């Protein structure tokens, strides 16, 4: 694989594009014209766990970019549909890999074309300082597995490419257990952080007092685990243990949904909690607490718009 297109150049997209450009020809599909222009002129600078600048070819339409063998859809969850619509009719032989939080991004892409698809879940993180500057913060892996029209060998091929670029990746025959572990974890930690304003800190694991936040966190995770069980997925890691470990490390990570709240941007709650609630309904599993969190986050987003909103949020 020598030609990769990264569609959506936020934190995760910037990291993929900058690293992969060291081992492949990388193009970037951006939403904004000025973003594409800046990338073409300046490339992408990586700081933090890396210190280099990569050259990429950027544009706002697929027609202006060379045909890739691999497309990494790295936009926010809510943008998967419009981005996939933009890709429709282009590059029929390319493998398309989604890296969004939650589950179901590959299914959204599937509605727009017949590309072979890979599903993945990424645990790496960074901070975006500018259109052309990303800080690589957590060097944790991206886990990749086959979806429609691909085989475990395809997943291994892409994982090997990513590994060769300096990022961490691992291929799985079935990536769903990892996806679900992260989904249950994120649906809980992101929404609790977004509504309380707390970074992911020891409050999330506190159980001493009946009103401690850990009880709610555990109850949300128990709901999520019940949905995973009903979906026939055996989680590869227990989300509660992930939560306890993460808070003990003392890093006090600001989940992306909390950052969105700080910036008063639309959050990914539709892709994260929304996808969990939709699966729960499909499977007939009650998730009243996740529905509560979903409604509260949607309402918080609405509070940033001054006009009143008559339409309800419906996951």
């Amino acid at each position, binding site marked *: 694989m020598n030609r990769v297109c990264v569609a959506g150049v936020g934190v995760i997209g910037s990291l993929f594009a900058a690293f992969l450009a060291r081992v492949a020809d990388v193009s970037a599909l951006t939403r904004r014209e000025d973003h594409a222009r800046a990338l073409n002129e300046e490339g992408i600078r990586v700081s933090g766990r890396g210190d280099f600048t990569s050259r990429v070819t950027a544009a706002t339409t697929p027609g202006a970019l060379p045909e890739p063998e691999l497309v990494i859809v790295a936009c926010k969850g809510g943008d998967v549909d419009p981005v996939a619509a933009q890709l429709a009719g282009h590059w029929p032989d390319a493998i398309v890999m989604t890296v969004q939080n939650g589950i179901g991004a590959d299914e959204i892409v599937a509605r727009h074309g017949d590309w072979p698809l890979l599903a993945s879940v990424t645990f790496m993180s960074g901070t975006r300082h500018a259109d052309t500057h990303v800080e690589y913060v957590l060097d944790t892996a991206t886990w990749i597995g086959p979806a429609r029209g691909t085989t475990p060998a395809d997943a291994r091929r892409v994982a090997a490419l990513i590994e060769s670029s300096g990022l961490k990746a691992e291929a799985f025959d079935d990536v769903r257990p990892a996806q679900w572990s992260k989904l249950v974890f994120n649906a809980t930690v992101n929404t*609790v952080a977004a*509504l*309380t*304003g*707390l970074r992911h800190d020891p*409050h999330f694991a506190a159980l001493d007092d*009946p*009103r*401690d*936040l850990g*009880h*709610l966190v555990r*109850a949300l995770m128990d709901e999520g685990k019940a949905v995973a069980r009903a979906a026939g997925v055996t989680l590869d890691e227990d989300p509660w243990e992930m939560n306890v470990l993460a808070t003990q490390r003392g890093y006090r990570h600001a989940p992306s949904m909390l950052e969105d709240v700080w910036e008063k941007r639309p959050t990914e709650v539709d892709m994260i909690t929304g996808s969990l609630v939709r699966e729960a309904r499909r499977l007939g599993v009650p998730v*009243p*607490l996740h529905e*509560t969190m979903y*409604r*509260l986050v*949607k*309402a*918080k987003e*609405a*509070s*940033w718009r001054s006009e*009143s*909103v*008559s339409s*309800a*949020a*419906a996951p």
Partner: protein
Amino acid sequence: MAIRVCVVGCGAVGSLFAANLATLGDVEVWAYDLAREHVDATNRDGLRLTGAGEVLGRPRATADAAELPPCDFGIVATKAMHTEAAIAATAHAFAGGCVATVQNGIGNEEVLARHVERVIRGTTFPAGKITAPGVVQWDVKGDTTLGPFEDRPAPFSEVERLAEACTRAGMPTSAVHDARGPQWRKVIFNAATNPLGALTGLTHGRVCERPDLRRLATALVDEGKAVAGAQGITLDSDPEELIDYAARPEVAYDHKASMLQDVEARRQTEIDFLNGGIAGFGQRLGVPTPTHEAIWALVKGVEASW
């Protein structure tokens, strides 16, 4: 016969009682509050209400509990988390009197009863905000209900005497034998709506016009009704009606719940006495309240984030 009343905690609601009662010739009103500027302004210029009523009352204000003379009645109107400190400081003035609470939430009477002999359970709906020292904007008029607190009851005749004075002062108040119904209606109303505003930043009206949030409020109301029912309490009317009534443009559509005001100002909220109170009663009675517990934990989390 003249009576002497001390309002303990002269924030917005306390000021409404103090200013209105002070207009009566046969009621001597004291106002105890720790906010020195508000006390000084009240003593200098009087206590002025604007908005729903234009009133200038001249209670005697003090931040020093030792100055308080023996009183026939106390009206406690502090935020619920300050009840203990306020009544501990002022109890001496009520050694021969009766003390009513008009505070939010549940559990205030129990705190008062640890310090004074005769307690009046109370619930009040008027609301406002202090706009400057000595000046209170009266936003919402409403009724007050008083009744003897079961564990340490004030004589019913005394409850009637206080209710009569409040009513005559322009604060319509009824004395009833069982005041739990109105109190639980209000606490359920507050617990079902205030934290939703506080967590989302939406005014009462905007909370109510989102059908998904309105259903969440109903889930909180239903859990609250179950806890009230398990104690044999008959609500005097359905909190759902109050929620919809308050959402009208001419009532409180644009009102930011006091809990949202607290969150915006990063002040401790009354969540422990609202959702926390309902969850606590639920636990003791074996009635599940998972939604109240979740909301309680989230608002405690908000407080912890400061």
